[in-house]
């Protein structure tokens, strides 16, 4: 009896237990990622928000007083640096797109068996540190560097012509450093395009430009969106390029955050600046997504 009574049970219970585990599986798989985000993103961000609204300093301790003076100071005092960040970030992103699109297009459609090799060459600079790559631009663009010494010896520019340090070199550095972030997403979306669609468009009397405008570009939009965001966001917050390749008038908001923290030892203003920067980026991204249209981006 006992055996007969218990034996049908396991088959009856097993599916439900398996189903429960099955339902929980996605959450279990998400746990590491969620924990990571909580510990290294959510908590620090909340902490930074609290600091930006506190008074006091690190030695006497911070008290949450909802004092917004750090925000008024951040917005009022550092407008030129915000303008620099937005301008340089935008120009660098557009330059990355103009340089990166033909490269990605060539790799995707004309790469042939050299595809992997060219992709490797795009990523290769990442094997050295960001700092070294930026410092080498100091040598490349230097007054006696390879570029200027040739141009000067040919008499194209005057002997005391120099590019470094300037807004131009900052933008050049940003463009160079973030170019792979533009090329790779563009390549991924271009690579997925079925060449038969382009053939079909030619059959329908589309010229090369028409095929590009109506087939290639719309299908590459998700890549354009991802690429511009991956370039624009880090470029906006960057301070290394402005620090190494720029002048005192080309400083970006990242430089202000750095010097307010490291020189003055102030915690509130850098925290407030970071939030203003985040807000600015979010607004820019929303406008951008609206302009491009979300359907194209997910489709």
């Amino acid at each position: 009896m006992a055996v007969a009574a218990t034996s049908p049970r396991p088959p009856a219970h097993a599916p439900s237990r398996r189903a429960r585990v099955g339902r929980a599986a996605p959450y279990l798989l998400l746990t590491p990622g969620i924990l990571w985000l909580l510990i290294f993103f959510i908590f620090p961000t909340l902490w930074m928000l609290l600091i930006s609204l506190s008074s006091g300093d690190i030695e006497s301790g911070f008290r949450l007083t909802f004092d917004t003076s750090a925000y008024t100071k951040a917005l009022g005092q550092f407008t030129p640096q915000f303008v620099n960040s937005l301008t340089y970030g935008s120009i660098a992103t557009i330059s990355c797109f103009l340089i990166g699109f033909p490269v990605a297009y060539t790799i995707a459609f004309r790469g042939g068996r050299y595809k992997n090799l060219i992709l490797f060459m795009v990523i290769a600079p990442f094997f050295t540190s960001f700092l070294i790559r930026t410092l080498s631009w100091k040598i490349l663009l230097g007054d006696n560097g390879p570029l200027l010494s040739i141009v000067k010896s040919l008499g194209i520019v005057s002997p005391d012509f120099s590019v470094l340090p300037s807004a131009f070199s900052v933008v050049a550095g940003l463009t160079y450093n973030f170019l792979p972030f533009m090329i790779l997403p563009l390549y991924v979306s271009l690579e997925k395009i079925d060449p038969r669609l382009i053939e079909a468009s030619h059959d329908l009397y589309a010229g090369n430009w028409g095929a590009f405008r109506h087939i290639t570009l719309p299908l590459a939009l998700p890549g354009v969106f991802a690429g511009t965001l991956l370039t624009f966001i880090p470029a906006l917050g960057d301070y290394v390029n402005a620090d190494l390749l720029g002048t005192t008038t080309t400083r970006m908001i990242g430089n202000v955050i750095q010097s307010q923290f490291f020189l003055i030892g102030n915690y509130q203003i850098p925290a407030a600046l970071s939030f203003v920067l985040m807000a600015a980026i979010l607004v820019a991204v929303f406008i951008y997504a609206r302009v491009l249209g979300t359907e194209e981006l997910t489709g």
Partner: protein
Amino acid sequence: MEESNVPATVRDLTRRRFLQATGATGVAAFLAACGGGLGTATPTATAVPTGTPPPGQSPSPTPQPTPSPTLGGTLHWANWPAYIDLTGAAADAGKYAPGSSPTIVNFQKQTGITVDYQEKIEDNAHFFATIQPQLVAGLSTGWDLIVMTDWMAAKLISKGWIEKIDHGAVPNCVANLRDPLKGLSWDPGNDYHYPWQSGMTGIGYDSKALTTNQITPPASIADLFTIATAHAKNVSFLTESRDTFGLVMLKLGLDPSHVTVATLQQAHDAMRPLVDAGVRFADNSYLQDFAQGKTWAAMVWSGDLAGSGTADEHFVFPTEGVMIWSDNMLIPKGAQNQPAAQAMMNYVYDPQIAGNLANAIYYVSPVKGADAVVKQLNASAPLDPTVQNLLFPGPDVVAKQHAFQAPLDADTEDTLNNLYLDLSGG
């Protein structure tokens, strides 16, 4: 300018190349003096300074405590670039690499302590920001020995963030600290600090670049301002705001040892047009800018160009005056290996070792008797008068030395920081 009287060959000899030649003999001499023995360096008769017994007879000619049994482990030491003697590839690169400094190698041999020497300090405020959170939280900073300029040392000590030095463990320091450096208001009994090196802030220039561009080498801050007016991109000031504001105040006839909000503002206003034209602020990275031909003339620290620059790079004592300062060895609170830090302090206060060091880095040694050692090391060739003045400032230089007011009250310090940030672009 001063060097035009010196024949070219001597000038070259007195610079780095001479140093590299004497370096080897100097190393041999001090290894011999310390009873160590480097297999490859055979001390010759000339290598051993007179008065030092040959190796083997007396293993320890200078007062040194027997290494106590508790010594060992690793010494984590943060210092400024161009502040230690280097040999071989590291000397050419101007960057410390493990095993490249005879002073450190010999210390490791002598004490069994592993030295983790890092050229991590390029700016007082910047370095302070990296250790402040740990100090506030009562945690270890990860460093056993740090080197900070007077004003920052005074600040750290006043906050109680520095370990007290056990004077019994540093007999060389007690005996050999030069008198003018004793009894400072912020640490009168040297309970918390011993100077690492003293130095001056003046003008450095690259004679080759200036000649090519038909510019007369600067003799004063006013001259530096003139060069900056025409070639702003090739001139740099220092990120260490006390040095920069101090020198500009001297140019304006103001007293940097008694600063006010008004005098700081005057210095700021004098620099404004030059900065707008493109003058940059550099930390110790000015050494690379000189090397790349980017900087032709700049505000620099006294020993750097002689020690780490090329033969074309010179230091001048501006006619208006120079800024003086000391960088001080401190043991931050929570240091993991205080005995090792004290052993290092004691070791570098041995006149023989201090002399060798001074002879390599061209800063003013705070150690009594180091000057005699440097003179012996350079017995065969007279020192270039400028270099002579770097190591042993003569009465004419001493008369022009000024120290920046330390400590500043909070308001004045805020003003200084904000005026500096306004110039440097925020």
